[in-house]
């Protein structure tokens, strides 16, 4: 299956990359890992006139905690996060999600930034980054701005990135205090999209829940954040009753549709079960930390 014809440029610097995007606007698409974009091209769901391959742009592959953030460069592959043992303590939701994305070969190429920019409602990183309160850095010839992930997803496959903007980095706030988190994903087989997935992040304060983040995949037109559940958990005692109430609120916030992977009713039920289990696991981990 050949993709449609396109021009191809491989900029050697960030300036050159954003210049190309400024010139070509929405006629151009950025190629990073290509694990979503190349299938889209083959299926004729996208037909850009130009591909801007940023894989050789220096400086986009950094992964470091600095200035109160974990900074994940746009070219950091899923496999890098999967292998990075140092993330397991402070960023358990990331460490839990990385090995569950697609399959090992896709993880060798696919990127976190690309996954967010692609904005698939079944995307794993979208759910995780919503739970973590992360943001992305968008660079264009006009300058640089930071977009909270909760403002990034406008609709299915649609983000608030402008056509001339390049996503250069994902910024995850460093946790304050004991932290727990996990990623629970129901999938039919390795490599399939999630039937339902839930990302949970918890920061404890004086034995109570300080901040909780809950992100969901495959249960709406975009990745969704369970805002009411998060609000109910903030400052709460970490009890089974609190988890059950948050799970009920999260299931209410989900709007799944019935498809080959399951009925809407089933998916909503899985959200409830996963949020409850995820919160219990996250709090237990935070207490052990």
């Amino acid at each position, binding site marked *: 299956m050949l993709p449609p014809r396109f021009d191809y440029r491989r900029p050697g610097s960030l300036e050159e990359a954003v210049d190309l995007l400024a010139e070509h606007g929405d006629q151009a698409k950025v190629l990073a890992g290509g694990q979503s974009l190349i299938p889209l091209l083959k299926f004729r769901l996208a037909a850009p006139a130009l591909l801007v391959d940023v894989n050789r742009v220096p400086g986009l592959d950094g992964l470091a905690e600095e200035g109160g953030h974990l900074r994940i460069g746009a070219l950091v592959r899923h496999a890098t996060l999967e292998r990075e043992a140092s993330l397991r303590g402070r960023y358990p939701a990331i460490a839990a999600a990385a090995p569950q994305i697609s399959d*090992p*070969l896709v993880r060798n190429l696919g990127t976190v930034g690309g996954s967010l920019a692609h904005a698939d409602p079944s995307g794993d990183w979208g759910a995780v980054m919503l739970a973590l309160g992360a943001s992305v850095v968008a660079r264009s010839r006009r300058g640089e701005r930071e977009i909270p992930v909760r403002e990034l997803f406008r609709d299915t496959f649609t983000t608030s990135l402008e056509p001339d903007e390049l996503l250069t980095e994902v910024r995850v706030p460093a946790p304050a205090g004991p932290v727990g988190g996990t990623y629970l994903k129901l999938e039919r087989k390795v490599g399939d999209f999630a039937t339902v997935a839930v990302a949970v992040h918890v920061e404890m304060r004086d034995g109570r829940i300080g901040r909780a983040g809950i992100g969901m995949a495959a249960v709406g037109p975009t990745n969704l954040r369970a805002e009411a559940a998060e609000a109910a958990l903030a400052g709460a005692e970490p009890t089974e009753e609190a988890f059950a109430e948050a799970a009920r609120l999260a299931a209410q916030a989900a709007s799944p549709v019935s498809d080959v992977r399951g009925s809407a009713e089933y998916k909503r039920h899985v959200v409830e079960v996963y949020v409850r289990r995820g919160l219990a696991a996250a709090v237990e981990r935070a207490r052990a930390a």
Partner: protein
Amino acid sequence: MQVSCSVNGVPRTADVEPRLLLVHLIREVFDLTGTHVGCDTTSCGACTVLLDGTPVKSCTVLAVQADGREITTVEGLGQDGKLHPIQEGFKEEHGLQCGFCTPGMMLVAKALLERNPDPTEEDIRWAISGNICRCTGYVNIVKAIRWAARRMAEERPAAAV
């Protein structure tokens, strides 16, 4: 657009359309048909090659992305008419039936054993989890890779004590 890469250690150059997929460059331009096209949708792993030593699905990489890089295909496993221990393992343990998935399985095994020379069964199952064998011969594929790991350990000079 010109692409220059190393394929199994041999420098190769081709003039290709940007939309050409790496698997077609390998099969149709370089005439190395050991790399198979299965699902063509990043699911099955029949088209697996090593790109700078890392397994990737070559139906989901553009040929132009391989410019300046090293590609290893199944044809690069055996050396001087001698089978690679991974190929021997697949033969000894009956790690294939129809053989369609075998090149991909052997290449992910090569990358695994380079990173982890003594993998557990779970490590092996993780490594091959992006590759589908529709003969469902997974048990013997796992055995074949363990066989290769043992053989490669025997062949390595003993570490100085």
